[in-house]
């Protein structure tokens, strides 16, 4: 089997209309929108290109050897809770995936729209002390057509429920039926007065636009889909972009600097190619779609005498307001086997606690879904109850009893934007290319922890009501790990308090754009991919319009 190689269209010294950095959930969509609108586009992707048939059910490769993820030697990062302590290596993890398609290849597929309230929380909830809670400069109504476009173009399965925001179109594909965790969740949730519904998933429940539907193999989260049924950008918009013959996906290309000229406009990017030789790709405009950590890092790396604190960072906000989303889980073991290692990650969700409720005494909201993390080696190592032995005869007995009978109910919740939570460059640590590493400064706001604990309590109630023989939890603690990296180049109309405007254009550099999780003003309740992709469709349309009018 030969590995597909992107056919090179553009020489590196050839000026193209757009360089897009990152080919993930956002970058793939922006590339397709700009290329189909007539622009020449080079997408520089740090990681390799893999084809669907290459994706294997290999826990060791995925989690230990760390193929395509953050290898701690090649890509170290440091972590501290606040600027008053030293940042340490090896104490935290940002998990993202470096390959063509990025996180959209490896995510669970969970796909939640924001609600109307998510865009106006500052107005609705008032200021939250210790946070920089702000309204978005756009509304749900502004973004709604693009949620619909993403769902129909990429292929999203679901059904509307009692708490859904307004929709111009239904889902293109029917929802997945409940698997055992979903059936039990429904039973428990209904008996405590909640209103469960099918989970929206960017995974095909039926054949769609020539693609194979889900075969229920069970390896969605942190694995690529060998069937191409997960609606990643790799199997949807990226081939469409390439089919225009105006878009080149250049993989194994690690961008380390965005260059700007004497007029204060970007002129191209510098990157390491596959052989670690530095190259320059010239462009009339640049769109950063790296993710909420790598995009601010790249801007900080692109400092110059004109921008001593980082490109487009005159107000110092690049990298700030880092948000994780809250995550809190309770697990239960039932009498009969569920076999959660089969099927998609989650089939049922309850949004009853989505909205902020001042009577709770803290800001925040979220949702509960029924899921399981049932990869066998990891389960055996990490997922028995906390009071279980970790080796020996009783451990083995419990493992054989629990593995097929366990499920979880997970609360997904809000993260407040806090200015001191940030992505910065570590002053000492460098990666394997000699580039300064990311330093994460992060501490959950007390209201975020209160919300997580609240949802975890509700999760326990649901599992007990569902008839679990045993229920357990790991106590909520300050988070040091995330897959949702949000908020670090926030969108806003006021150039003093934001990094990009409503066209995703940086306030300071007229031909530099950002479109990825860094733009989110509020974190939503989890599963941000839907919102990131809707923003990408909207950004692609608006950037193309600016290009057409000669306003870049």
């Amino acid at each position, binding site marked *: 089997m030969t590995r597909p190689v992107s056919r090179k269209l553009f020489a590196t010294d050839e000026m193209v209309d757009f360089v897009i950095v990152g080919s993930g959930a956002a970058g793939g969509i922006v590339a397709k929108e700009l290329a189909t609108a007539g622009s020449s586009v080079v997408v520089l992707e740090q990681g390799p290109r893999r084809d669907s048939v290459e994706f294997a059910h290999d826990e060791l490769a995925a989690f*230990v050897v760390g*193929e395509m993820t*953050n290898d701690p030697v090649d890509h170290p990062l440091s972590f501290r809770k606040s600027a008053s302590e030293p940042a340490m290596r090896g104490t935290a*993890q940002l998990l993202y995936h470096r390959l063509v398609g990025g996180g959209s290849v490896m995510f669970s597929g969970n796909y939640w729209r924001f609600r109307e309230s998510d865009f106006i929380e500052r107005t609705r909830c008032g200021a939250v002390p210790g946070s920089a809670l702000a309204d978005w400069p756009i509304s749900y109504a502004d973004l709604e057509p693009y949620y619909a476009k993403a769902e129909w173009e990429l292929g999203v399965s679901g059904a509307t429920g009692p708490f859904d925001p307004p929709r111009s179109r239904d889902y293109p594909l029917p929802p997945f039926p409940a698997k*055992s965790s979903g059936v039990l969740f429904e039973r428990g949730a209904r008996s405590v007065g909640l209103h469960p519904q099918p989970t929206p998933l960017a995974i095909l429940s039926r054949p769609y636009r020539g693609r194979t539907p889900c075969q229920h193999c069970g390896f969605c989260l942190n694995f690529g889909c060998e069937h191409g049924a997960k609606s990643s950008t790799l199997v949807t918009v990226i081939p469409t972009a390439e089919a225009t013959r105006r878009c080149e996906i250049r993989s194994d290309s690690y961008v380390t600097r965005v260059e700007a000229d004497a007029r204060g406009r970007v002129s191209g990017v510098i990157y390491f190619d596959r052989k670690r030789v530095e190259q320059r790709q010239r462009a009339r405009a640049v769109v950063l779609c790296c993710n909420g950590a790598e995009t601010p890092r790249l801007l900080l790396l692109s400092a110059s005498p004109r921008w001593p604190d980082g490109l487009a960072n005159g107000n110092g906000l690049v990298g700030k307001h880092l948000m994780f989303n809250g995550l809190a889980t309770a697990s239960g073991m039932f009498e*009969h086997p*569920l076999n959660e290692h089969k099927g998609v990650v989650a089939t049922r969700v309850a949004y009853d606690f989505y909205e902020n409720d001042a009577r709770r005494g803290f800001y925040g909201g979220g949702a509960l879904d029924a899921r399981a993390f049932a990869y066998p*080696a990891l389960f055996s190592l990490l997922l028995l109850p906390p009071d279980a032995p970790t080796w020996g005869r009783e451990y083995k007995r419990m493992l054989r009893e629990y593995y097929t009978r366990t499920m979880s109910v997970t609360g997904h919740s809000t993260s407040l934007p806090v200015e001191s939570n940030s992505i910065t460059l570590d002053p000492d640590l460098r990666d394997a290319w000699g580039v300064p590493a990311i330093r994460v400064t992060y501490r959950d706001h007390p209201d975020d922890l209160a919300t997580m604990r609240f949802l975890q309590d509700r999760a326990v109630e649901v599992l007990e009501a569902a008839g679990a023989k045993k229920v357990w939890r790991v106590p909520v603690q300050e988070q040091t790990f995330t897959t949702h990296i949000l908020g670090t180049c926030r969108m806003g109309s006021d150039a003093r308090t934001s990094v990009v405007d409503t066209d995703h254009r940086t306030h300071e550099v007229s031909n530099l754009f950002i479109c990825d999780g860094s733009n989110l003003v509020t974190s939503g309740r989890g599963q941000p991919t839907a919102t990131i992709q809707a923003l990408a469709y909207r950004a692609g349309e608006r950037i193309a319009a600016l290009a057409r009018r000669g306003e870049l």
Partner: protein
Amino acid sequence: MSEDAVSRRDFAARLAAATGGIWLSRSLGGVSWRRDPLDARSANVGWRVLTRSERANVEAVASCIMPSDDSAGAREAGVVRFVDVALATWARDKRVVIRDGLAELDTRCKARWGRGPFAELADGEQEALLHEAEETAFFQTMRLFTAFGMFGDPRYGGNAGEAGWRLIGFEDRHRWQQPFGYYDGAASEGEE
């Protein structure tokens, strides 16, 4: 349990609770483990790193972690083969911690009972020594190796004949059809 054990377990459990992903090497020292192309299932592949006595002791440790009884354990699954392949390839950085750990076990055998090696102690004696070693990087690495040697892809040298997967009720397939388990089966039959 000591502070370290609690914090390490809580840390790992916290990672697990964040079901977005688990980074195991983080909890074991953050070593880069390179993967070489390999398929270690062939019976003709000779031992690459472990000496005969090391193999006996590694197998004994793994058999304490995942004992054999009326069902397969680490011995039947070939965890020692998995460890040998790992130390020859993607986990070569772990040779020192494994060898140091085995040497320490040997020292403690002799100090406590005046005999050894570890592999020849009685079960209860082996378990007693391993309880003392629970907090060490050696034992935590052996737990990791045993987990993936039991339940990882057989191409890495363990999970012989998929014995580990069958032990816990997992099967690796590209396609499944509902019902997957009892409760979605009951639902589809109209019960409750």
